[in-house]
């Protein structure tokens, strides 16, 4: 009887040991939490747990399974001395508290044998559909030479979010700048606001007059980018103003395009300009025409047209790439007055070299307001200037604070890293 009891006790002990072979060997890890990653597309979850005294010897593993009973797969692992919440990549207003007391790991997939499986099922290229994300079970396993410990399984499904709160600072900047601009548009409607002289734009009248006298066309290029590019939008605004002058003087304008949408927009703008100038009958829809969307095909064609038609003036507004010098140099060889305006900083040197006048960077955006004196555009320009003044002031203050921080002692630290204060963090965002 005693033997039976002894054997039963032995078997129960072995079974218990097999179930939890070394649970007692490591102290339980505290504060283990699995959560959906906030402000993402539903691709990942995050795990946090407290720093433990024996972290130097411990390796932590995040295990994942599609059912509570497994099989369990390795999703991520980290030595106990790495991956803390202060490096989680979130700005200070998001995510767990930023310190080195809390471990942090984000998981977006796991290794199943040779295959890497993502938590968010991939899109089927044929049906263009994605299976619904299943429920997952996660657990944290701590292992060291002394033994191991594992957390209870947690059921969790990654969810997508509509707002990326990590970009909150950008949203607030946008609201602030929009508010300033709207206020100045209102002011510009009441009184005339000053705009400094921009030499390149004073040459527009000269160029249109020259084309009229010579009876030769004006070439106007809107750049290589699509209508969603800010510089292309600026180029279309300037086209509207130049087309008004062209219509008034009854000169010819030719606008070769590389983007069909931009061409359609420019056709509308040119038509409006002719109507505004009181010459709707002179408008030719063919003045805006599509060449090709290929960079150098377009360049070769426009170069050929320039050489054959010898335009009186060439305008290069918008965003350009390697074709800038090829176009501007050919235009210069025909003897045309050339005015360029671009925010493509790598191409500006070529325009500065080959053109008579060049609008540098933001001057391109200011050009529409300068030429039209429209209250909306002038107010926007003044609003942008106020925005720049705010940025300048912020730069001055923050640089002064950062520099002074090198000489003073704060909280026993000298030099104190002022770049770690929240203002910098807010500026930086995620």
């Amino acid at each position, binding site marked *: 009887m005693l033997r039976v009891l002894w054997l039963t006790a032995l078997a129960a002990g072995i079974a218990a040991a097999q179930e939890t072979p070394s649970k007692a060997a490591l102290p339980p890890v505290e504060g283990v939490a699995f959560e959906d990653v906030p402000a993402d597309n539903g691709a990942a979850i995050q795990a946090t747990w407290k720093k433990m005294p024996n972290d130097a010897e411990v390796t932590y593993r995040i295990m994942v399974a599609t059912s509570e009973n497994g099989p369990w797969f390795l999703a991520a692992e980290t030595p106990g001395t790495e991956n803390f919440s202060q490096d989680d990549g979130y700005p200070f207003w998001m995510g767990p508290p930023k310190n080195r007391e809390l471990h942090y790991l984000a998981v977006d997939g796991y290794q199943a044998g040779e295959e890497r499986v993502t938590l968010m099922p991939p899109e089927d290229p044929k049906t263009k559909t994605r299976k619904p994300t299943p429920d997952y079970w996660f657990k944290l396993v701590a292992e060291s030479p002394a033994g191991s410990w594992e957390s209870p399984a947690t059921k969790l499904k990654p969810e997508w979010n509509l707002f990326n709160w990590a970009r909150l600072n950008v949203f607030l900047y946008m609201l602030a700048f929009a508010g300033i601009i709207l206020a100045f548009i209102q002011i510009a409607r009441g009184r005339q606001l000053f705009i400094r002289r921009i030499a390149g734009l004073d040459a527009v009248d000269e160029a249109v007059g020259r084309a009229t006298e010579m009876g030769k066309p004006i070439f106007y290029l809107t750049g290589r980018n699509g209508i969603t590019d800010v510089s292309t939008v600026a180029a279309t605004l300037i086209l509207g103003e130049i087309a008004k002058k062209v219509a008034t003087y009854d000169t010819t304008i030719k606008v070769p395009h590389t983007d069909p949408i931009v061409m359609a927009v420019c056709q509308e703008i040119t038509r409006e300009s002719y109507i505004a100038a009181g010459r709707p009958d002179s408008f030719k829809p063919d003045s805006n025409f599509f060449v090709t969307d290929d960079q150098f095909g377009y360049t070769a064609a426009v170069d050929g047209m320039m050489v054959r038609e010898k335009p009186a003036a060439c305008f290069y507004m918008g965003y350009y790439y390697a074709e800038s010098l090829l176009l501007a140099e050919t235009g210069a060889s025909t003897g045309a007055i050339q005015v360029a305006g671009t925010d493509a900083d790598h191409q500006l040197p070529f325009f500065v*070299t080959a053109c008579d006048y060049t609008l540098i960077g933001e001057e391109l955006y200011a050009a529409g307001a300068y030429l039209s004196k429209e209250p909306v555009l002038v107010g926007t320009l003044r609003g942008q200037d106020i925005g720049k003044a705010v940025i300048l002031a912020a730069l001055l203050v923050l640089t002064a604070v950062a520099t002074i921080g090198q000489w003073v002692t704060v909280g026993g630290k000298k030099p104190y890293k002022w770049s770690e204060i929240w203002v910098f963090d807010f500026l930086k965002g995620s």
Partner: protein
Amino acid sequence: MEIVGAWIAVGLTLFMFSFLYKDNPFYKVGENLYVGITIGYFVIQLWYKTWIDKVWDVLTGQAHDRFVILIPVLIGALLLTRFVPKIAWMSRWAFAFVIGYGAGLAIPATLTTSVVIQAQATAKPLVTMPDRSPGAAKATENAKAAYDKAKEGAAKEDEKIRAARYRYEQSRSVSEYTFLTAYRDFTTIVIFVGVFCVLFYFFFSIEHRGPVRAFSRVGILFLMIYFGASYGNTVMGRLSLLYGRVLDLKDYSRQMYGFATPVILVLMIAVLAALHVKNKGKDEGHAA
């Protein structure tokens, strides 16, 4: 086949280069071929990559929300109303949508990359004081030890020694005020002054007179230095492209390609000379 390819490559290259002489029939052939081929390619790309991939395959797929694709298709189709003058105004809805979403995408991205990140990178201490903390001293000590070890252990592995020395110098420049610290401070000051003055140049609401003019002049000086450096850098890149073409022309001069380069070049020169003589005769006839 390889010879045919070589002759086409050489011919088209020389046709395009002939523009350096002046506009001529060879260039016109090259130009029209180029435009025609690229438009053909563009249409095929649009058909397969946009219509088939993004519309047809989706509509004929099994996704329960596949008909949502008809909304952008309808917006795109509104552009075609431009061909019917009476309803051409409907195309403006499509433009409004395109420009609206373009601005929506561009504004946050521009604010982040051109304002937030730039401002954050500019606002740094103009003068750096050495970090006298034990942690910084220890880091320098460790880096020095690693550098010494690299020098001993891998005398011939220059790369490893250089990397270890770099880490040591970087570490030392934090715990002590070294030449590297001074250089870093100088760079920070130059960047700060540059950003400050260039921003002044782009103020449009104030007359550039007095101190504002002085700041904006310094700003334009910074811009011109940048333009000069950028110009030189790009020209070097373009020259390497030219080398590539010239090397191809040289390769195709060999017998195995049927002396493609010299033959085409001589033929082109002969035709251009004949055209020149013919046009000269015409011009003289007109003048007489």
